[in-house]
């Protein structure tokens, strides 16, 4: 069947390409300044490195040996975010620990290194460290306490988008892929995009265009004919344990290396990362070798990691500015770059890339300063002082929060659909109705991104079925497409589980496969 492509035209002040935290942050920043924006992403919010990281709000100590500038930025920004986005942050505190075999010189000198950056880094005794974190290795010889914290990047992005929407009806379109720019007289005139769900074509006319595509920024800049964005890709792989193993962020007290940070996140812990240079962004996924390295290295700090039950692994790509060089990509600058492309003869296009989750707000501020200035708008930035308001439909990503809401509401008709994470029907209703990026026929992947559904030990193998059946029930799904959404959701979750399936998770996988493929036939939908 050939379908005539529908064409649609949209106008906006600013088009932001890339729905990571930076793009979402720019959207809110510009909304405060009275500018209307459209944010688009090829996939969905936090689909790239924004969703593929530790969820660590750096105190700055991590970068102290390699990049003082970044360390100071982290210290300043983490302090700001703890005030303005406290609902997305857990102030866990952090430890830096050295174990037998680590360089004693580096360990001894650490507090002195942190001092010029103004980071509060205090030595604590081995006994005190073990009181704070009983699972720490017996081979510890040095420990410091630092103001590290954790942050939920999904909630952060959702709330930024939700607030921008509230301020001036700025909007977000998921699964909208940029195909090409139309250039005219030193400007981008329009951006032609495709809605990857409906295959319809959308032409967007904007006054300013922002490329906030993180690791993909080079590709997008090239679409506008810009040759001044040169990125290297450093892939990092992380794994998620079934239990929360520590209450603090635990860092290995040595120059950055594999498997040297363990970050608690709600009911789980996240261990990482590895660092491998990759040439393209298509084949980025965890490998068995990376998993084994992380576990082996992490075990030196926390021996329990060797026997821990892991439920998922994931990879993200750090975009590194090519000029950085150096032998270890983790040593390269973690600073960000804002390019105005004036040397490329474009006056309404800029690119923001590099940096990290902790500095996303500052990146958004600098970008918004440039964009607003180009539009002769002199409104000041407000994001460092105005707290991010909460929004009902964005509250479901918080680990451990769903059960609280559910018990409080005490509605026996509101059935739990995801039993691992206690996500009720009402959460699904709210997300489908109001969450940023919500639409009539939402995929299970999109719903899972906006909630805890599928994040527990069963990794969605049961709740995926229940939620799909609920969506059919509510009339959101009405034909075989619903089963395809279900299959795609399981395929997506599998990317995270395939390298960590041993022990109890192997039993879980066998049950899931028996159910999804053996009974429901999701491996053979084409022929069913």
């Amino acid at each position: 069947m050939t379908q005539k492509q529908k064409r649609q035209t949209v106008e906006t002040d600013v088009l932001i390409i890339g729905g990571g935290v930076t793009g979402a942050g720019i959207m809110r920043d510009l909304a405060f300044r009275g500018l209307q924006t459209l944010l688009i992403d090829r996939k969905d919010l936090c689909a790239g490195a924004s969703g593929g990281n530790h969820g660590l709000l750096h105190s700055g100590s991590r970068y102290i040996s390699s990049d003082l500038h970044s360390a100071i930025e982290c210290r300043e920004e983490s302090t700001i975010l703890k005030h303005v986005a406290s609902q997305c942050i857990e102030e866990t505190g952090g430890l830096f620990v050295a174990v037998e075999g680590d360089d004693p010189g580096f360990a001894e000198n650490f507090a002195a290194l942190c001092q010029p950056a103004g980071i509060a880094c205090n030595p604590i005794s081995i006994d005190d460290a073990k009181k704070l974190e009983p699972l720490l290795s017996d081979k510890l010889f040095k420990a410091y306490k630092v103001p590290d914290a954790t942050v939920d990047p999904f909630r952060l992005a959702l709330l930024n988008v939700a607030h921008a929407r509230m301020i001036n009806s700025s909007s977000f379109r998921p699964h909208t892929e940029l195909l090409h720019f139309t250039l005219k007289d030193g400007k981008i005139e329009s951006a032609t995009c495709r809605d990857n769900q409906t295959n319809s074509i959308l032409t967007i006319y904007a006054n300013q265009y922002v490329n906030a595509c993180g690791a993909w920024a080079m590709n997008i800049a090239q679409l506008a004919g810009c040759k001044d964005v040169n990125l290297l890709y450093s892939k990092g792989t992380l794994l998620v344990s079934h239990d929360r193993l520590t209450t603090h962020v635990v860092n290995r007290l040595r120059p950055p290396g594999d498997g040297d940070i363990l970050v608690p996140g709600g009911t789980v812990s996240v261990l990482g990362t590895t660092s491998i240079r990759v040439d393209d962004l298509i084949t980025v996924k965890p490998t068995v070798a990376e998993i084994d390295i992380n576990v082996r290295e992490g075990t030196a700090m926390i021996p329990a990691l060797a026997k821990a039950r892991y439920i998922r692994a994931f990879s993200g790509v750090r975009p590194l500015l090519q000029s950085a060089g150096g032998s270890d990509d983790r040593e390269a600058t973690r600073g960000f770059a804002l390019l105005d492309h004036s040397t490329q003869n474009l006056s309404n296009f800029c690119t923001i890339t590099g940096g990290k989750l902790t500095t996303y707000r500052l990146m958004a501020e600098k970008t918004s300063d440039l964009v607003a200035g180009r539009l002769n708008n002199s409104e000041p930035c407000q994001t460092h002082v105005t707290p991010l308001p909460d929004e009902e439909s964005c509250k479901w990503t918080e680990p451990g929060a769903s059960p609280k809401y559910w018990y409080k509401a005490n509605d026996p008709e509101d059935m739990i659909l995801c039993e691992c994470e206690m996500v009720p029907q009402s959460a699904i209703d709210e997300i489908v109705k109001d969450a940023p990026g919500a639409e009539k026929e939402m995929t299970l992947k999109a719903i899972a991104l906006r909630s805890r559904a599928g994040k527990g030990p069963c990794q969605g193998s049961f709740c995926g079925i229940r939620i799909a059946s609920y969506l059919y029930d509510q009339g959101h799904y009405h034909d075989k497409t619903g089963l395809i959404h279900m299959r795609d959701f399981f395929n997506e979750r599998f990317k995270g589980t395939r390298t960590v399936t041993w022990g109890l998770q192997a039993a879980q996988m066998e049950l899931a496969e028996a159910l999804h493929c053996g009974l429901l036939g999701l491996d053979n939908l084409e022929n069913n």
Partner: protein
Amino acid sequence: MSEEDRHFSAELAVIGTGLAGFAASIFALKRNIKTAQVGNTGAVAYTTGYLDLLGSLAPDYLASIEDPWQGIEQLRDSHPRHPLCRIPKDDIFTAFEQFTSFLGKCGIAYTPPGEFNVSGLTPAGTLKPTLCVPATMQVGSAAFSQKEPCVIIDFKGLKGFSSRQVVANLKDRWPKLSSKRVEFPDMVSGEIYPEVMARSLEVPATREKLAKILASAAGDVKVIGLPAILGMHAPDLVREELEQLTGLQIFEIPTMPPSVPGIRLREMFEQLFPQKGVTLIPQQKVDRLVFIENGAQLSLNDSFGPISIHAKSVILATGRFLSGGLKAGVDGVSEPLLKLPVTQPDSRREWYREKYTDRRGHAVNSAGIEVDSSFRPLDNHGRPYSKNLFAAGVILAHQDWIRGRCGAGVAIATAYKAVEEVEKLLK
């Protein structure tokens, strides 16, 4: 209560309480072999009730196959080491016949094995190729093939089963299918569970109330489908009575596991096996199995203390990862009870393909133990581990029961073969 050692002796000890284990005990009963059965999980409760023989063919598992018998013939050429290929067709047929007729005599009637697969309905509205179906589900498969007008009924408060979903996915092939939601008698608010609904339907008063609701929901339509809730111990009687009360034809569709049809089988076995002389010790794991002169010694513990069983022969039907028959470790797959060698991919990197629903299946799913032509597990030297030890079920290598839709087939056929070999040994 004082702890007291309990000793049992048997001609055959079956280890495992999944489909293969229960099938082995049934075939042993048939041959008057004195049997003890032990198992740590209720794996059988995870079955949907459908007994598939072979629904899809390796290596690509493309379309569902209609003729499983011909499928096995093809498999004999392409995958001669598949457990189903090592058993004569007549024996497989007899195994299914004996198994289903035993279940029927115990109160859970099944369709006998036929020449072709039938289409089992699933809660997603897809079709599962299967050889035998419980009598409670038979009308559904027939109504589908005849495209008869039919209403799928679901219940307010029962999650995971949506009649609108079943209809949405079948309506292109079954135009006269429609959906309806009703309230279950005396369970009108909050969440309700299939197991509780099934048990409440053992009470005649509940059946009468439900019958009125169903009759009204059906309207002019004469065939209705329900989630599998029609009683726990006498599903055929429950269905028959509801049909009489409503004047309708009624069938069940399995729900998500552990579902009522699986729990029915488990409870029926647990209740009837002891009456029939099988020493059944469910929910217990065998701690140790050692082979001695002319037999084996099994050791286990329950809450009353240690139990030991002396048996002249043993059938290992401990399943795969879910039941603990195989263990997946960081460094490979092992068989924990006897440390039998496991045929498996060279490294963990090769266990899984990139895509979960890849039709070709995952390499780790064909890992398992090797057996000789008498279904005796092989040791590291390729020799039988013991002349008294046999194996059955999905612990066997060279089959992917999930992609092949052959879990029940492998379980029942290999159990039949293993028991036949046990009988030869005992003679």
